[in-house]
């Protein structure tokens, strides 16, 4: 059958250049150079396209995502609105991913979790955003008619998302209120894990690694009832010490 030859996308030279910088040139040794070149671009004209390319972290190498976070930090000195946009955009991507739960988007959703964690490491989001995102992942769409489509019982992808984010930045939550928040989150996470029943082995191993790294002495509960009991205990404990914690909160 005759059909016209596929027309390849023709990009304007500036876009081609931005793509070359980010997708070809960028590595540990060239990052200073890439940052300088990005700063030299006609900013107003290029900003939307650079933002678009930054959201394509899944197209590059997984191990390089921190370089994009580092570039975000570097650009924020001169274009703070850009860094704010990057953060908002990543959080939106994560949310849309939960809303659509599209199998074909899994790779990019994992990359966005990693990116968010790296943005925390470069101090462009604060810990409350990380914890709100973690909790959102556990509960989004639950108790709605769409639950079976958004988080099917046998689907462990959300566990993978949590593991990715905590692997990236969880080790910073080791003191003060963020330590307590992580302890608390991990209990809710355990409850969520137990609700999934038997996990695929690769996920189970990654979970073991994660717990070993973040909280080597944590109890792994074996039933939802046990977690619930522990959560009740935690609530009570926090209630009695709430005076202390509320005064600490303001100093965060």
């Amino acid at each position, binding site marked *: 059958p005759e059909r016209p030859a596929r027309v390849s996308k023709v990009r304007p030279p500036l876009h081609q250049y931005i793509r070359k910088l980010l997708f070809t040139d960028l590595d540990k040794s060239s990052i200073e150079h890439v940052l300088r070149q990005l700063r030299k671009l006609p900013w107003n004209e290029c900003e939307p396209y650079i933002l678009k390319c930054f959201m394509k972290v899944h197209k590059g190498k997984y191990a390089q995502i921190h370089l994009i976070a580092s570039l975000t930090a570097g650009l924020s*000195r*001169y274009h*703070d609105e850009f860094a*704010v*946009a990057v953060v*908002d955009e990543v959080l*939106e991507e994560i949310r849309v991913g939960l809303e659509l739960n599209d199998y074909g988007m899994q790779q990019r959703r994992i990359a966005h979790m990693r990116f968010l964690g790296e943005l925390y490491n470069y101090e462009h*989001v604060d810990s409350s*955003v990380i*914890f709100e995102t973690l909790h959102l992942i556990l509960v989004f769409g639950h108790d709605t008619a769409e639950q079976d489509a958004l988080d099917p019982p046998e689907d462990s992808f959300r566990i993978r998302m949590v593991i990715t984010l905590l692997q990236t930045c969880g080790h910073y939550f080791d003191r003060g209120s963020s330590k307590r928040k992580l302890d608390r989150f991990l209990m809710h996470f355990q409850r969520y894990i137990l609700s999934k029943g038997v996990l695929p082995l690769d996920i189970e191993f990654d979970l073991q690694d994660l717990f070993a790294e973040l909280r080597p002495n944590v109890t792994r509960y074996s039933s939802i009832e046990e977690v619930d009991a522990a959560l009740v205990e935690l609530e009570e404990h926090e209630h009695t010490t709430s005076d202390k914690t509320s005064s600490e909160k303001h100093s965060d």
Partner: protein
Amino acid sequence: MKDPLRRTKVVLRHLPPSLGQADLLAQIDDRFRNRYNWFSFRPGKSSHKHQRYSRAYIDFKNPEDVFEFAEFFDGHVFVNEKGTQLKAIVEYSPSQRVPKPCSKRDGR
């Protein structure tokens, strides 16, 4: 976590992909002009393959204005030419950061 009563930045989600910044502002500014410090619009996209809703971020001057705005705009229904309805969502933006007013000019 930032005290909810002190949060000022909201996100408008699920806006029609075809909606432009000017159209949106026209609907908002009647009532909320001069009550926000910062507004940022992210146009959506409507192609066959990927449809993306438009979005906007607003940083209000007063936390109380967020409530009034949510009452005014959350659930606002847009109807397109084909009669499809789309309900806008107003939420606190998960990240409350807004650009610092005076970034350095880039000497490059």
